[in-house]
């Protein structure tokens, strides 16, 4: 196992394709945090993010023989994670909006409370920032959000984001710019 951890992704994938399950386990350990975080950024729920990202590993494993190595493993794998997250978002849109409304109400209550009694401290600002980011991301067109999350949160290059989203780099640049502009608009008062 220790030797396998030294192997590159391509080598681990090739061995997994030959039926060496323990090599795929190394890939799980290598990418579990990234997979979880990207799912969490989409769902904002720990349990759902865990289930979705684990499901992505299962799908990747089930289809590992179809992976032809034209892209890197992580690009291929992120595409699976992102597609699962988008499918989940489609199925649970109603629920997401309900929780968003609830968050907005709670946010309003806190604003009144803060305005009348206490000066906002750093913790409150951080909480408000998070809520506003969540709200902006939630209302953002899906492709913009996906491009932004992959570039900003996951650190993928624009070229890799384009591969994951099966689009051009120029389109990703436009999505990224619009997403950043929207977030800047919503967060400007906290700067």
């Amino acid at each position: 196992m220790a030797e396998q951890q030294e192997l590159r992704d391509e080598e681990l994938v090739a061995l997994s394709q030959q039926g060496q399950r323990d090599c795929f386990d190394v890939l799980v350990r290598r990418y579990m945090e990234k997979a979880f975080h990207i799912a969490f950024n989409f769902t904002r729920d720990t349990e759902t993010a865990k289930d979705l990202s684990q499901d992505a590993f299962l799908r990747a494993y089930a289809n590992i023989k179809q992976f032809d190595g034209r892209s890197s493993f992580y690009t291929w794998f992120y595409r699976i994670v992102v597609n699962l997250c988008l499918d989940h978002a489609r199925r649970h849109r109603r629920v997401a909006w309900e929780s968003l409304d609830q968050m907005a109400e709670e946010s309003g209550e806190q604003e009144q409370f803060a305005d009348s009694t206490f000066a906002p401290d750093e913790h409150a600002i951080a909480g408000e920032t998070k809520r506003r980011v969540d709200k902006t991301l939630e209302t953002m067109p899906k492709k913009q959000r996906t491009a932004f999350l992959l570039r900003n949160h996951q650190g993928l290059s624009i070229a890799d984001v384009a591969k994951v989203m099966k689009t051009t780099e120029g389109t990703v640049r436009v999505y990224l710019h619009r997403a950043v502009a929207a977030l800047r608009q919503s967060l400007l008062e906290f700067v």
Partner: protein
Amino acid sequence: MKTSAPLKSACKQYEEDLVLHYYGENSEGERHSVERHLADCDPCRLFLEDLRKLLPQITQAEEMPQSFWDNYYRETVSKLTSYDEKKYWWRSFFAPMRTWMVPAFGSLAAAVLVVGLMFGNDKLNLSIEPRVERIPQEILADKSQLEFFESMEILEALSKLEAQDEPKTDVINHDAGRAAMPGQVA
């Protein structure tokens, strides 16, 4: 909370380049062009400063404890194992077999096969019974005739014997005839 100041935008033609500049995704030529523009444009400089303050805040991921990741890894591996078990269910039939049993059974099967082939081809004859020469079929077809001729010879011999015994028989019969007719006048 309300927005306290109107939002200052960057120059429209540079806004996208500034975002790419922040991510370090623009080409060298674009980067020089943006840097030259930033030296003379306050709104664009402010826009870039906003990005440098805002975007790292958004990136902050929730830190999960190590126990969470240990549990996550265990669960994922367990799910993968369950998948393997469902997909390769037939392997469970061979699960009790140890590694040494496979070559052992293989050797045994090979030996049985070789012995079977040898006996099947009649190349290995271990019987010590003497070989009995078989009579050709055409000869067997005349067997009944042979017996017939043999029986004919016996009959011939019998007829010869009868011929030898015949005079005596005639005398006896003649004497017997006389005795049988005592009242007859010759």
